Each structure stands twice: as structure tokens, then as C-alpha cells.
């Protein structure tokens, strides 16, 4: 057995040593620690502020064994030859917000045509934006796109050097302060599911080959934590976990809204989930983000989660019918 199991997760801008979601619950409740204490294995969390690239590099040099991050990150690293396998695909409620200054004449999505827009290329917002525009028969060249990180984009917006920003819920802060307004977002029941971001949990192949049973045990804990946090009874707890990472309560509440927890945090390897991975891979190929095709089926290792779910007696279902996305629409169990 290894001495330590290293888990790589996305850090938060507030420099808090916590994560939200399932891992947050596992971390708080000490689930991993309890599970592995008897084997003398420690568990270490690595919170990467550099997100995707940093996590991929950590996987590549063996700093972390497991990682959870956005779908695109996994796709590009797999295409780049990183030896990892996907254990599970995670929830799909990373929303994209298109914001403009509060006093801007831009009112609706189509007003954006020909405008200067800031967009962080190669992130889920890029993916999301591309789907949105292609569904509307537009092309990237219909806009003047500036590649800026989400936060630099907001600064540029405040400074008036771009007209709009394709961003995350972080923009809501400035919306609340009355400086910006949202002209379009991927929230709401009538938005296609695939506009939203999702993620994946991966394991290094080395580790997997050496300790397949550990992989399963880790995944089982993740699944257990997931069951807890997708239970609507624990909605307050989910919010509290997010707030623990430093996100102001107001923002946390706004971002979660009335989305169903199952949809936000679900964990799956079902057909739909894999289809989404394929879509992402195709997108990446189309936009020259990856140089060769990846074989999704060879990449995903569904057996672990399937077994875990069987042992836990839970049904694998992540992509819910649109009617189940929001708790107002449907009573969720």
C-alpha cells in the first residue's frame, strides 16, 4: 500500500483549505481518514489554484493519484498522452453568465453581435459559449473575442475595454453591487443541458494498476459522500460547505438557486454521461485543442462506480430529465 493517497482538487480564490461538494463533505467528515486509518494510509488533499494545467501536471509527475476537474481538462490531457482513467463523470451545473455594464445598451443575446467580448478560451465557458452560438447559427467571428481569464475579463468590462463578458457566477458579485447586469445565463429549465459544465473524477493508471482495490474503496467513499450531498434534506449543509471555501453566502445561494442537488452533484458513468464526454472530445477536436482523437471507451473505467453503486444499492443516474433539474418543478427524492 502507498503511505499516502493524494487527491488533487480545484482550489478556491479565497485560499481556504476547503472544497465544496462531495469531497468537501468527505473532507469535513473525515471519511477517507476513517476508512484508511486501519491500513496506515494517510490522505492528502492538494488544492490547485492553477486548476486544469496544474492538476494535469501534478497527475503527470505523480504528485496526485486522484483528481477531480472539468471535462475539457481531462480530454486535453488524455489526448496529450497523460495516463489516466475516468472513474466517474460529475454533475453538470457549472453555469455561464453573460454580463454587461449596468448602463449598457446591450439588452439581449443578439445585441452582442459585433461587440467586444471577453472569454477565457479553453475553459468550460468557451465550450458553453460555442454551443450557445452554434445553436443560434452564429460563429465566433461574429464577435470580437478577447481571450481573458474570467477575472481579467471583469476588470476589462469595468474599464470599458470590452462590451460583455462570458463568465462564471463570480460576476454575480458585481451584479449585486449594481455595476453589471446579466443579459443571458445558462440557468433555467429551458436551457439545453449541454450548455452547462460538468466534470470528471480521474485516477492515474499507475495507481490503478497497482491498487485496484484501493481505487474502488476511494470511489466508494466518494459515492457515499455524494449520496449525502445529493440528498435534498442536506441542502443547507451543501450551501454551508460552499461557504466554507470562502464564497460569500449570498453568492453561494444565488449560484445554487433552486437547482436540484442530484443534478448539480450527481456522479455517474452511464451512457448519457459518456455521450457528454464524447461531445466534449469532439468539440476539442473541432477547435484544435487536441491533435488526435481519443477513444472514450478505452478511457472511461465504468466498472468501479458500477460495482460501488451496486454495493451501495443506488441507481446510477446523472443526466436527469429537464423536469428534474429544478426542485420547484419536481419534487425530488
Amino acid at each position: 500500500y502507498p503511505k499516502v493517497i493524494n487527491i488533487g482538487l480545484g482550489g478556491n480564490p479565497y485560499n481556504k483549505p476547503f472544497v465544496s461538494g462531495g469531497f468537501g463533505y468527505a473532507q469535513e467528515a473525515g471519511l477517507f481518514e476513517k476508512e484508511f486509518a486501519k491500513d496506515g494510509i494517510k490522505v492528502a488533499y492538494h488544492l490547485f489554484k492553477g486548476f486544469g494545467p496544474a492538476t494535469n501536471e501534478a497527475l503527470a509527475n505523480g504528485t496526485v493519484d486522484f483528481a477531480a476537474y472539468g471535462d475539457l481538462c481531462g480530454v486535453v490531457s488524455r489526448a496529450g498522452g497523460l495516463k489516466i482513467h475516468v472513474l466517474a463523470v460529475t454533475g453538470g451545473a457549472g453555469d455561464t453568465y453573460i454580463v454587461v455594464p449596468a448602463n449598457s445598451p446591450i439588452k439581449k443575446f443578439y445585441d452582442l453581435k459585433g461587440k467586444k467580448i471577453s472569454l477565457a478560451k479553453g475553459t468550460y465557458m468557451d465550450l458553453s459559449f460555442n454551443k450557445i452560438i452554434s445553436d443560434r447559427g452564429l460563429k465566433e467571428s461574429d464577435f470580437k473575442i478577447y481571450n481573458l481569464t474570467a477575472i481579467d475579463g471583469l476588470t476589462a468590462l469595468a474599464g470599458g475595454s470590452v462590451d460583455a463578458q462570458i463568465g462564471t457566477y463570480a460576476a454575480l458579485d458585481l451584479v449585486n453591487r449594481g455595476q453589471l447586469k446579466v443579459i443571458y445565463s445558462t440557468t433555467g429549465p429551458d436551457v439545453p443541458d449541454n450548455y452547462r459544465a460538468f466534470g470528471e473524477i480521474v485516477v492515474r493508471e499507475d495507481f490503478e494498476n497497482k491498487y485496484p482495490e484501493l481505487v474502488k474503496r476511494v470511489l466508494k467513499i466518494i459515492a457515499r459522500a455524494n449520496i449525502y450531498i445529493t440528498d435534498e434534506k442536506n441542502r443547507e449543509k451543501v450551501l454551508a460547505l460552499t461557504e466554507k471555501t470562502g464564497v460569500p453566502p449570498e453568492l453561494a445561494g444565488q449560484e445554487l438557486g433552486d437547482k436540484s442537488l442530484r443534478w448539480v452533484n450527481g456522479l455517474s458513468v452511464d451512457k448519457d454521461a459518456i455521450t457528454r464526454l464524447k461531445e466534449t472530445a469532439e468539440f476539442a477536436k473541432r477547435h484544435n485543442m487536441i491533435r488526435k482523437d481519443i477513444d472514450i471507451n478505452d478511457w472511461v473505467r465504468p466498472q468501479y462506480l458500477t460495482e460501488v453503486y451496486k454495493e451501495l444499492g443506488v441507481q446510477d443516474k446523472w443526466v436527469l430529465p429537464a423536469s428534474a433539474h429544478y426542485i420547484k418543478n419536481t419534487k425530488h427524492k
Partner: protein
Amino acid sequence: MKLKNIFLPWLLPVFLLAVWQAGSATGIFPETILPSPVVIAQTLWEAIAGGEVISNLAITLRRTIIGLSIGVSAGFLLGILTATMPLLDALLSPSIIAFRQVPMFAWIPMIILVFGIEEGSKIVFISIGTFYPMVINTYDGIKTVPKKYLEVARVYEYTPIQTFQKVIFPSAFPSIITGLRFSIGMSWMLVVGAEILGAATGIGFLMAWSRQMFQLDRVFAYVIVVGAIGIIINSLVTGVEKKLLAWRGSGDGGSI
């Protein structure tokens, strides 16, 4: 003798390259962290043949050169002024020192706010970063001009400008050149930072993008391009330096 001169500069790089290739071949350096030289060479060749290197390099060079020229001239000028005018020194130097201590990265919001996200901001970013080494080397170079030579200029009632031209500048020149080299090095490091300011072109952008896309062979291929340009610029500077420092005579220099 001659042979040795040609051979020596290649010794270390070739050695490093051999270690690198060996490390890659045996898997000590995972390909996903440090692609093997052969792979990188291949990628580099494709990138050059495909024309992307040239076009992006041209863009980056333009930004770098403009930014560098501004930063270096400002640093040079301010270095001179603060070193020669005690009042200005007392007035500005503490601020220059203090501002220098704030990471470039923290200035990005202000730069975006004030200069936007077009070429201007990238150039400003590079200018600020290249300003500091120049200002401090110029300042220190001038502060260590031997007094005996300044006295000669005083005796001939040289105006400050004449003294500068004939005594201070030539004497501080080696130090100024060191500052220039440092600034050039800085500019290449900064270009990656600059080109995440709203750019989708340029070698720096490509580097950051390739890293994000986990194409490390490309990252290294661009690194080689940047390194090569750096070496070329550096040897140009060395050439100019040699010419202008002919007066140092054959006996000079630290070699023992």
C-alpha cells in the same frame, strides 16, 4: 585552440541534451512532463514548417521590442536623472524601490483598467517589468564612476550634459549594458504574462495555451524558439558591447 573554442560552448548543451534524451528514453522524465528532445524537435519542425511560429513570433517580437524600448529608455533616463540629481533621487528613488517590490501580476487589474486589453496593455506590462533592472543598473553604474575622471571634467568646466556624454556614460556603460541584458531576459519572461492579457496570438500566448491544452512538446518547442531568439539578441548585445568597450584593452577582463 581554435577547435576547442568551437567545441566548448556546445559541451554543456550537448551533455544536458544527452541526459535529457536518456532520461526520456528510460522513462525517468515522463513524456507528459518533459517530452524527449526528439519529439520536441519534431514538433518544432512542424510548427516552423506550418508557419505558425513565424507569424506569432513576429507579433511577439513587435510587442517585446516596443515594450522593451519604452521600459529600457524610461529606466535609463530615470536612472540617469536620479543618480545625478540628489533632489530627484530623494524624491523618486524610494517610490521606485517600493513600486518595484510589487509583483507585476498585481498590476494587471490596473493595467487593464487604464490601458485596456489591446496592444497597449501588453506593451505597458513589458515596459514596467523591463524598467526596473535598467533603472537600478544605470543608477549604480553612474554612482560608481571613478571620481578622478569626474574631476577632469570639472576642471574643463564641462556642462552636466557634456560630462554625461564624455565621462559618466562611457564609464557606466558596462553596468548599463548589464541592465539591458537583464531587461531583455525579463521581457521574454514577461511576454507570457503579457499575452494572457486578451491576446490570442503571439509566442507567449501559444506557450500558455499549449500548457493549458497539455501539449508540453509544443510548450518546449516554443520555449526553444524564445530561447534561440534570446541567445541571438544576447549575442547582438555582446557584439555591440565588444565594439564599444574596445578601450578596455586586451589586458582587461576577469579571466585568470
